[in-house]
Each structure stands twice: as structure tokens, then as C-alpha cells.
């Protein structure tokens, strides 16, 4: 392979810098004794400890975790069931359903947020953590289903047919053969769903109502009152949690295909 000319490297460096430098500055600031990003006064964990004293932040963190865990669990079950139906059963309109699966993924979040808000308002549902959770399940089902579907297609039908041929009914076949095979995909889908839920802002903003605040919503309202260094600390935590989840999910998706 030929070495690319020097200016390709230069453009790459600028692009990567623009993407990642702000994040690097944010992470560095969260450990900076100074209140101002421009000045380095030495290393500190003070901003992180200060988070623990803030009741509003801890409440928001708890709300975010509850919403993320519950919506992930529900989306994982439903998404896996949808993937199984699409991959293993012939029914009329199957291709339409498969197409619809990608709709929540490509729909702009703001459209999804407004439409869910209209739905809840029309149905007379009180906005709160419940509606946030339902909204998160709604967009996460697609992500889980798409990941599990890829895994099911990669697996083929032979193993399931072999299990049935050896006397296993549909349920036994699912739990003894299909599930162990698609588990990396299911877990990857769940981690993806957790990440999407944990850091979602736009859709949550529409369906949250008054009084229920998740971490991204709280960060937004805090920023409106001025950037405090504690926000850098929260953001760094969100970044680390989601990065780890995505990395594990990515590893799991790769794994197991020989």
C-alpha cells in the first residue's frame, strides 16, 4: 500500500481534534481545582464529591437508572420476541413489519417526542417517570430487535431443527438452543438500549412532565443557570458509563461467529 500524502494526515488530525478535543477538555476540567477551564490549578476530585451532597442530582441519577433499567428489560424481551417472529416465522405482512422496525431508528427524535406527547395527552395519561419509561421502550425495541435479528440470521435454522428432531418442543428448543446462541446479541442489544435510555434528552424532554427529572434533563437545566464544574463531573460519569456499555456491546456482537 502507498503512503498517503502528508496533508491527509493533517486533515485527519484536525477532524479528530474537533471531535474529541472538547470532550478531552471537559474530562480534564472535571478534575481541575479551578472553576474555569482555561486555568489549571491542580488535580482534584472535589467536584465528584460535591455531587454526593446534591439531593437533586442524586434524585435525577436514581430516576435515570430506574427508567434505563426498566425500559431496557422490557425492550429486550419485546425486541427479542419481534426478532424471533421476523426471523423464524412466515406470516403475511412480515416484510412490512421488518421495514417498520427501522422507522423509530430513522425518525428524528423531536418528531418521536412530539408524537408520543400527543399520544399521552390524547389518552389522558399523566406525564412522569411512567411515560418516560414507555417512550424509551418504544424507541429501544427497534435497536434490540435489529441486533438480535442479525444474530438469528447468522445462526441459521439447523441447530433449532436438530433440537426439534431430537425431541425438543418449541419452548425447550428456545431455551436450550436458540437463547444460548443469540445471548451475546441479546446482551449487546440490552446494553445498547441502556445507553440510549440513560443519555436520552430530546424524547425525554417532551414526555417528562413537571417534577420528574432524569440526569440529562437536570444537566440541561443546570447549564441554563450557568456552567458549574459539577456538570463536567456528571458528564464525565455519563460518558464513562455509556462508553463501557457500548464497548462491551460491540465486543459481544463480534463474538461467536466462526
Amino acid at each position: 500500500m502507498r503512503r498517503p500524502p502528508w496533508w491527509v494526515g493533517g486533515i485527519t488530525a484536525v477532524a479528530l481534534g474537533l471531535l474529541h478535543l472538547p470532550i478531552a477538555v471537559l474530562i480534564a476540567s472535571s478534575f481541575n481545582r479551578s472553576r474555569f477551564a482555561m486555568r489549571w490549578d491542580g488535580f482534584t476530585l472535589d467536584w465528584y464529591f460535591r455531587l454526593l451532597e446534591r439531593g437533586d442530582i442524586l434524585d435525577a441519577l436514581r430516576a435515570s437508572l430506574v427508567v434505563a433499567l426498566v425500559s431496557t428489560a422490557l425492550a429486550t424481551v419485546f425486541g427479542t420476541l419481534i426478532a424471533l417472529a421476523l426471523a423464524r416465522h412466515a406470516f403475511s405482512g412480515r416484510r412490512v413489519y421488518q421495514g417498520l422496525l427501522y422507522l423509530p431508528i430513522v425518525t428524528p427524535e423531536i418528531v418521536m417526542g412530539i408524537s408520543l406527547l400527543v399520544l399521552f395527552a390524547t389518552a389522558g395519561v399523566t406525564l412522569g417517570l411512567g411515560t418516560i419509561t414507555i417512550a424509551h421502550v418504544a424507541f429501544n425495541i427497534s435497536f434490540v430487535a435489529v441486533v438480535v435479528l442479525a444474530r438469528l440470521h447468522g445462526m441459521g435454522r439447523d441447530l433449532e431443527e436438530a433440537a426439534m428432531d431430537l425431541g425438543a418442543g418449541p419452548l425447550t428448543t428456545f431455551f436450550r438452543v436458540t437463547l444460548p446462541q443469540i445471548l451475546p446479541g441479546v446482551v449487546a442489544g440490552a446494553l445498547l438500549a441502556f445507553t440510549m435510555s440513560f443519555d436520552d434528552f430530546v424524547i425525554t424532554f417532551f414526555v417528562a412532565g413537571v417534577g420528574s427529572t432524569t440526569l440529562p434533563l437536570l444537566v440541561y437545566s443546570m447549564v441554563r443557570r450557568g456552567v458549574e464544574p459539577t456538570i463536567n463531573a456528571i458528564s464525565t460519569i455519563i460518558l464513562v458509563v455509556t462508553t463501557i456499555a457500548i464497548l462491551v456491546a460491540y465486543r459481544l456482537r463480534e463474538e461467536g461467529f466462526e
Partner: protein
Amino acid sequence: MSQDATLPPAVRFVRVRKSFGQTVAVDGVSFDVAAGEFFSLLGPSGCGKTTTLRMLAGFERPDAGEILLNGERIDGLPPWERPLAMVFQSYALFPHLSVARNVAFGLERRKLPRAEIDDRVRSALELVRLDPSTFGSRSPRQLSGGQRQRVALARALVLEPPVLLLDEPLGALDRKLRKEMQAELRALNRKLGTTFVYVTHDQEEALAMSDRVAVMAEARIEQVGTPEDVYERPRTAFVAGFLGETNIFEGDAGRSVAVRPERVRLLGSGSAVPSGFSSRPGEIRDLVYLGDREHAIVGLGSGADFRVDLRNTDQVGGRAWKRGDAVIVAWRPDDAHPLEDG
């Protein structure tokens, strides 16, 4: 092969039909397989042989017709209620289970006591000549193709099924291993008395292993018979052409006639044709040397090519033929088989 007249056939297909959308995969197929028989479904890819086997296993439902096992209809039963066992082309070993757990899978579904399961797994592995203490705890990923094949076989045989289904099980093995496994499968069929239904596209394999062969083409059975029947007395041009090489030409009665290259004699032009033989004059257009034999391709006056097999033991050594030699091809009328229009 046990041929007790009072016993119903182990497997019976009665006018079974199956189509996928517009495509007819199996078109009114009927055949019987006797208990203990090694029965092969032979044909090119897309002929319907695999669909036939999958209907027997229960993975596909026939659109019409009946499938009987030991005289009882099974075409309405799901695969897990059919007492058959299948060896898959891909082996389909469960990658998350050890070899022993793979073999135990069917026995566990039957809720047998643990001690009995362990015993039967051990003897099944020994039956396919895998040492249980060496291989039992291994993962299928750690096995060679031939060893996986044996595990798949053990996993099916451990259930002592009345009928064993095999879907091109030797396709992925190299030539030497394939020959070895052919002999072993044949020996297992005889030793256990299990009925084998074997799907293959390899005519040599089908001839070498089977008691009887059903030759399939385009969703139908062309001919059912012993290997000798289908090779020596092909009923249709397809069967004659699919099993080995053959010369098909217009016979004296105006019907198509097939004669095998190894049944044709090559004589020098002007030499006497043995009495009672049929013959045609021609010219050697090409000679193909194959080691144990040589193919002479003889152009007949009509423009058709005639293939003659010269075995290395006699004719090749006996006379050196050259391209362009004027010759006579001759055969006994018994070796020329009239073909049905098909």
C-alpha cells in the same frame, strides 16, 4: 435387509406433493423403504431429494399425500413427536454444549435417569469409534470435520431410532475420509438393523452404499431399484446420463437406446464383427488417457459422438489406437437399453 411380507414398510410415501410458492419441489412422489434397508435418494441439486427428506423428518408439511412410518401416518406430527433421527449436512452440533452433552441431548428430552444417559452416551461414542474419555468433554469447535461427523452420527444413533435420516452427511469431508465413512455407515446399517434413508447427489456414493436407490429429477422419481438395476438397466435418458457415462443414440426400432462406454468394443475397420453384435462404423476423434483406462471418442457418420472405455489391462496395451483411425464400434444387443420417453 429383512423382507418379511407381514411387516409394513418402515417408510412409505404415497403421492406426496410439496410446493414453495410457484415452485413445485416434490411432485406426487411414492416409494417404500423396507425395514433395515439402506435407501438412497439420488439426484442433482434442486431435484427435490432434500425436501423429501425434510418432509419425512417433519420440517416441511406436504401439501398432499401421505407419509407412513411402520404403517402409521406421521405427516401430521411435528418433528419432536416423530421417532426418527437425522444427521445434518452441516452436522448442526450445538456449539455451546460439550460432545457428551450434544449426544445426551435427545436422551435428556426423554427424561431418562442420569446413569442410563451416561451409559448410552458412552456406548454411542464408542459405536462411532470416538473415545468417550478423550472426546466427551471437548467442545465441537475443537474437533476435525470427520470427528464432528461422528458426533452427529452418535447423537442420532443414541436414540435408537427405527429410521435414520442422513442429508449429504459426507459432503464436507475429503475424498479419503469420505470413502472410509461410506464403509462405516454401511457397516453400522448392517450391524444395527436400522433403516437408513440417505440423500446424496454423488452417484458413486449412492451405488456403493445403497440396497436400493431412488433417482430423482425435477421433483419426480425417475426410477427406483438396486444399484445394479439403475446403472445397468436405466429406464430413462436422465437416469442413464446421471449415473456414470452413457451413449444415447437412435436404435433400430426408432427408440432412444443407451449403451455404457465400458460395454462397447472397439475394432479396427475391416475386422470381423463378432456374431450377434450390433455395430456402427466411425473414426477416432480423440483419445483421453485416464490412467486405469482410456476414453476413445468415436465420431459416427451421423455426427454423434460415441464414447468407448478401453481398460488399461487389455485393449490399450493390445493395440495403440491413434486419432483418425477408422474403426467399428460394436456391442451386444443385451447391453443396449431402450429408454422411455421422458
